[in-house]
């Protein structure tokens, strides 16, 4: 049985990116805003403000759809460095209350406060104290919903119960009631597809899921069926782990806003083009730039890759992607680019909306020095460029091939002598 005396706090920042922007800029407060990528017209809403959510705008909605639902919405380009810095600050606040802090995503953390709080009254006081510190140190607009429960899964469900700025306490004896008041897909780990499959099996709520024979769930879902059964009992009958623990997601591989990911399984970048294109030169230019970014991140983390996956999305939102494997692992952007382009070149690249690549089959450590002088020279050039980038930041160097070429009409005497 799960340790019944555990007390877990789940803290989820409300409309995080939008709230940070509203804290920074008081003229955005009280307005429906959506945080997007740089190219707002072709982007999605990464976070909608509380005001925009109230008007029906949802996270991951395309900007044109959001504008249709809420014509007054104002789009604001996101600032990942700002969100990352604030994330470190609120996690530092949490660490002043307990050393057992587990960041779950950029705006959520679990805190095991069993020893520090002693009981649920102490936990509630601690939650209020954390809320005061957030208000004092980050500002009044950056608010959080807090759930207190005997395990991660229930604490996360509890924090989602009252939004924004809620505080929900679920004692062990109240867990089943909380589940029975929730939809199946409110629980972290049950998505819309699983919900559909459960519906098809005649299960539409947690009471039915609890009563459904465990063996039948395991037959349908294998080990995930066991997890579903235990989750439906809220970990009351036997230990239940959070979905991330069940899936074996290590802390280091969880999403961050740009920090090192030493245990990452792949490195990738994709880019939605400013406008759809069929121009191979433009596509090559973007792909080369992305490959260089991937290569730099791998060299920074002392990692090499043996596989490249290249992919495109077309104007009709269909996509195509393939992968190839290198004989020797590499972290050189040029080699990644050449392989990725060999994958994409044979495809009919018409009306391309997005292009990207990722490198996988990673191994730690650098490659063996090449026997060929030209390749050894390239390696030393790359390490010199990496030093520059470490010192002065990204964007300090670019390959000439990735720069946009602007052809100007050349005149000779009184006449233009050629057309471009």
């Amino acid at each position, binding site marked *: 049985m799960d340790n019944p005396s555990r007390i877990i706090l789940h803290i989820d920042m409300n409309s995080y990116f939008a709230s*940070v922007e509203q*804290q*920074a*800029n008081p*003229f955005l407060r009280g307005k429906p805003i959506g945080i997007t990528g740089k190219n707002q017209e072709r982007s999605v809403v990464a976070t909608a403000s509380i005001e925009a959510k109230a008007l029906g705008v949802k996270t991951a909605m395309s900007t044109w759809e959001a504008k249709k639902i809420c014509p007054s919405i104002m789009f604001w380009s996101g600032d990942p460095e700002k969100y990352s810095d604030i994330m470190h600050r609120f996690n530092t606040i949490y660490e002043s209350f307990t050393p057992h802090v587990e960041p779950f995503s950029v705006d959520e953390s679990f805190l095991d406060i069993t020893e520090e709080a002693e009981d649920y009254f102490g936990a509630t006081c601690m939650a209020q104290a954390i809320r005061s510190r957030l208000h004092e140190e980050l500002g009044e607009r950056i608010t959080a919903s807090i759930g207190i429960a005997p395990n991660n899964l229930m604490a996360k469900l509890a924090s989602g119960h009252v939004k924004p700025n809620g505080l929900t306490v679920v004692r062990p004896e109240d867990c089943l009631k909380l589940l029975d008041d929730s939809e199946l897909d409110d629980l972290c780990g049950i998505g819309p597809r699983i919900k559909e499959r459960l519906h098809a099996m005649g299960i539409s709520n947690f009471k039915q899921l609890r009563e459904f024979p465990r063996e039948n769930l395991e037959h349908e879902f294998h080990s995930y069926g066991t997890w579903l059964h235990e989750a439906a009992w809220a970990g009351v009958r036997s230990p239940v782990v959070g979905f991330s623990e069940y899936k074996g997601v290590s802390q280091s591989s969880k999403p961050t806003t740009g920090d090192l990911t030493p245990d990452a399984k792949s490195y990738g970048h994709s880019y939605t083009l400013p406008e759809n294109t069929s121009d191979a030169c433009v596509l090559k230019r973007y792909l080369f730039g992305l490959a260089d970014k991937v290569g730099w991140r791998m060299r920074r983390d002392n990692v090499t890759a043996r596989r490249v996956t290249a992919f495109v999305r077309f104007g009709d939102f269909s996509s195509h992607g393939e992968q190839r494997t290198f004989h020797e692992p590499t972290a050189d952007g040029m080699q990644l680019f050449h392989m990725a382009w060999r994958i994409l070149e044979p495809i009919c690249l018409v009306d391309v909306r997005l292009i990207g690549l990722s490198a996988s089959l990673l191994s730690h450590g650098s490659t063996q020095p090449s026997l060929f002088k030209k390749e050894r020279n390239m390696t030393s050039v790359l390490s010199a460029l990496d030093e520059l980038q*470490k010192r002065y930041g990204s964007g300090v160097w670019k390959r000439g091939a990735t720069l946009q070429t602007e052809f100007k009409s050349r005149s000779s005497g009184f006449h233009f002598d050629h057309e471009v």
Partner: protein
Amino acid sequence: MHEILNDPIDVTVAFKDNRVLPRAMRWNEREYKIDQVNLVHTAREGTKRVFYFSVSDAANYFKLKLDPEFLEWRLVELYTDG
């Protein structure tokens, strides 16, 4: 109106409670009194850490960047309501 800029500016600051608080700035030959420091955050530029101050007066939001290596202030963002 929202503008992304990178203009050098003069800033008057107060050092209070172990914090740096911009009080006024001069940009485009005009003086702006800063009413509110809404948010301060940092970002890395290579090995260097720079500071951003999100401040406002009654009509404008300004994002100011302080480069601690050169002690240089720049106005990097301006938003005027309406």
